[in-house]
């Protein structure tokens, strides 16, 4: 059978031209600028940076504009861009304890040193659509108060002092940091690779996985020990300079989940923990990440691993929305040859089936 393999070029070209026109929309409406996207759709930019795994607000805003607001398409564009750039190296690990906190809440302790700081949050809003925002809204200037100079230690550090919570695993001397953008993923994967995978994982997928643990599929009894959002300084040990060079600051959200305790004949019982960290203000993402990080520690903590969220191969192989969308969406690309062979086989099978159904006497009569 003849299969058309040529002839799509002009259609493709015209389809992209039509796309560019549709993306612009009604030209009587002002064009949206990258600054507008970055400033007014900031949380979309944060998500594209997190899952695109590239901190650059302007590029994320451009990707959102180019993708017509399709965030997974925008994430795809950012990932493709990063693949074109050389890597200078890795930063010094950021110190979230020294974060210039813009928001910091704990659901486990009312009176934490440094206090409960609500910051810019949707929490406690009534989720009623606000017609005032429809046009020309000018917000009031933010209220101000005297800022405290007291440090805001991580809640887990406070619990850790009394041994009530397990301490964070430390790196072995000279151990390299796993990087799934450089080496293919192998299982079982260490915590560093799992956290890297979750940090760039799809928020919706992680939300569903985290939620499943709460509903009983790998329950781990979580408390939001602390969620903090703010600015941290980034330093890079540049070989040519010879010391750690300040690069500026980035915004991060960190979630410390405090989970069910464990103990043994040799160890006193203490709380366990799950960890979430992501670019920008990404609370749902980091909370989900912390729940899933804790669930994936099932084997290490001697728990039965029966639920999907505890299965690292399942979670890590399906968390990446660029991989996922690539494989799902490739189904719409031409599969004419594959399909023709299936069709040929099916016709043959149906003929055999029909032949078997027809009694020999009928065949003879027909002849």
């Amino acid at each position, binding site marked *: 059978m003849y299969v058309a393999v040529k002839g799509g070029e002009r259609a493709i070209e015209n389809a992209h031209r039509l796309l560019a026109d549709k993306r612009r929309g009604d030209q009587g409406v002002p064009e949206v600028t990258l600054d507008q996207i970055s400033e007014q759709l900031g949380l979309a930019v944060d998500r594209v940076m997190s899952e695109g795994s590239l*901190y650059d607000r302007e590029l994320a805003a451009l990707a959102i504009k180019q993708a017509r607001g399709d965030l997974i398409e925008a994430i795809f564009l950012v990932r493709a861009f990063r693949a074109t750039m050389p890597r*200078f190296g890795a930063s010094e690990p950021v110190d979230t304890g020294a974060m210039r906190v813009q928001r910091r809440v704990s659901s486990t302790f009312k009176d934490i040193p440094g206090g409960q700081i609500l910051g810019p949050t949707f929490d406690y809003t009534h989720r009623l659509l606000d017609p005032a925002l429809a046009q020309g809204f000018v917000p009031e200037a933010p209220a*101000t108060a005297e800022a405290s100079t007291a440090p805001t230690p991580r809640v887990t550090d406070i619990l850790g002092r009394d041994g009530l919570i397990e301490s*964070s695993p430390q790196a072995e001397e000279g151990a390299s940091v796993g990087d799934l953008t450089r080496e293919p993923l192998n299982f079982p994967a260490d915590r560093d690779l799992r956290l890297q995978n979750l940090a760039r994982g799809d928020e919706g997928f992680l939300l569903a996985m985290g939620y499943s643990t709460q509903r009983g599929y790998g329950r781990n009894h979580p408390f939001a020990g602390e969620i903090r959002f703010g600015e941290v300084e980034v330093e890079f040990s*540049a070989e040519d300079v010879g010391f750690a060079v300040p690069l500026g600051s980035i915004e991060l959200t960190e979630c410390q989940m405090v989970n069910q305790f464990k103990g043994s004949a040799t160890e006193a019982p203490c709380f366990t923990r799950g960890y979430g960290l992501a670019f920008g203000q990404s609370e749902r993402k980091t909370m989900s990440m912390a729940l899933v990080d804790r669930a994936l520690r099932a084997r290490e903590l001697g728990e039965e691993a029966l639920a999907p969220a505890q299965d690292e191969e399942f979670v890590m192989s399906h968390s990446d929305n660029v991989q996922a969308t690539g494989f799902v969406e490739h189904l719409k690309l031409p599969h004419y040859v594959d399909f023709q062979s299936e069709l040929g086989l099916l016709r043959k099978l149906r003929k055999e089936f029909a032949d078997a159904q027809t009694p020999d006497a009928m065949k003879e009569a027909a002849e």
Partner: protein
Amino acid sequence: MDQVTLHNNQQAQRQAAMAVLAHAEAGEIAARLRNLALPAHQDLRAPENGLVMLRGRVGGDGAPFNLGEATVSRAAVRLASGEVGFGYTLGRDGEKARLIALCDALVQSRDFGGAVERDVIAPLREQLMAGRAQAAAETAATKVDFYTMVRGEG
């Protein structure tokens, strides 16, 4: 002062200057530099964009892991008198990296170190600190005061 102490002092000074400059806009640095009679200098390395892998720590204080990358621009500048300055900054603004490199070279210069601190870095530091103080004050206003809530005052 011995050589090692001198070296450490200068390194701390360079880092402190870079920490301010990385937060400024290229235009702001350029405008401040226009107040100086700059010595002859040349690009040792033209501005170049690339990526740095940003790292976090497990639990905030444990073993490091790779969080995701950031765009970074870098450049190097040499003064006619020999000092070599390096500029690194988040983002893709090559001109900003070049200006930071120039400032870093000037910081190391006997003749220009004082002037660049006074006319460029100090005012930018003041501006940065004012911005941070404003943000901290706005944040502080959202701190929960449980005592007040219970009493129903405020």
